[in-house]
């Protein structure tokens, strides 16, 4: 099973995604993609760690090459988030571009139990962007569309509430 969760900044998408994953039986792996560049990143990571403490997640950090992540077979994986991973693959010297992201998702789907991916809605702020920004937007938009097409459930989170574009709540 594959769930895609999309939302804007501070929309409650992480909490919603976690609330779905904690209802699944078995091991829970939180696949963290944000590289702790600076104090702000570290504070954001600490906030997310607090949010999911006591929810039974094992944290696995992976900034690029998702396909190489050592995820226990059959575990339920929450990947957060696609916008960071895409930036890492596009801009890191060791990054493999958007194809590395898609290969990684394939590998996860083949290996894990239920996969939940959190991604960002960053496409409604106007169309006037510089070419490099547009390159990133095109890559993330394509990844989002391809993942949404494959997912069983796609939830757009607004003010913490899911708007189901596909599928629905867990039974």
């Amino acid at each position: 099973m594959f769930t895609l969760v999309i939302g804007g900044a501070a929309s409650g998408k992480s909490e919603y995604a976690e609330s779905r994953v904690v209802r699944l039986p078995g091991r829970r792996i939180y696949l963290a993609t944000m590289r702790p560049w600076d104090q702000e990143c570290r504070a954001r990571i600490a906030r997310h760690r607090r949010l999911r403490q006591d929810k039974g997640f094992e944290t696995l950090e992976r900034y690029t090459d998702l396909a190489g992540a050592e995820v226990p077979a059959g575990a339920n994986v929450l990947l957060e988030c696609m916008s960071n991973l895409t930036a890492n693959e596009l801009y890191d010297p060791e990054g493999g571009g958007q194809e590395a992201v898609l290969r990684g998702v394939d590998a996860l789907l083949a290996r894990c139990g239920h996969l939940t991916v959190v991604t960002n809605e960053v496409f409604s702020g106007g169309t006037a962007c510089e070419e490099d920004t547009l390159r990133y937007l095109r890559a993330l938009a394509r990844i989002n569309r391809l993942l949404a097409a494959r997912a069983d459930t796609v939830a757009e989170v607004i003010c913490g509430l899911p708007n189901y574009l596909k599928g629905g709540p867990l039974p």
Partner: protein
Amino acid sequence: MIFVTGPLLAGKQSCICAALGISPDEFARRAVRDVQELAAAAPDLPALAEALSRREIVIATEVGGGLVPTDPAERAAREAAGRLSCLLAERADTVIRVCCGLPQVLKGHLPC
């Protein structure tokens, strides 16, 4: 008229082509896209909406989601684009929002 809105690069065109079973060429003939770009220069938005509503498929990209632009012209253009979308949605038989390539019907229903 079918009014289609959604974020940038959301797959609005391919989604509508699939829903209506039409080719990209046919889509190009039957649809007018990026109408948000027409709003800023329009002296009369209701008249523009009226003219556009005579087309079969009208597509606009959502541009009102970010911070208020500091540039007055960009600010006015964004405002006009949002107002135009509301006017088009009012006049449309069907309003569809596409996100991540997935359509959601906000008004009416997709013609089969």
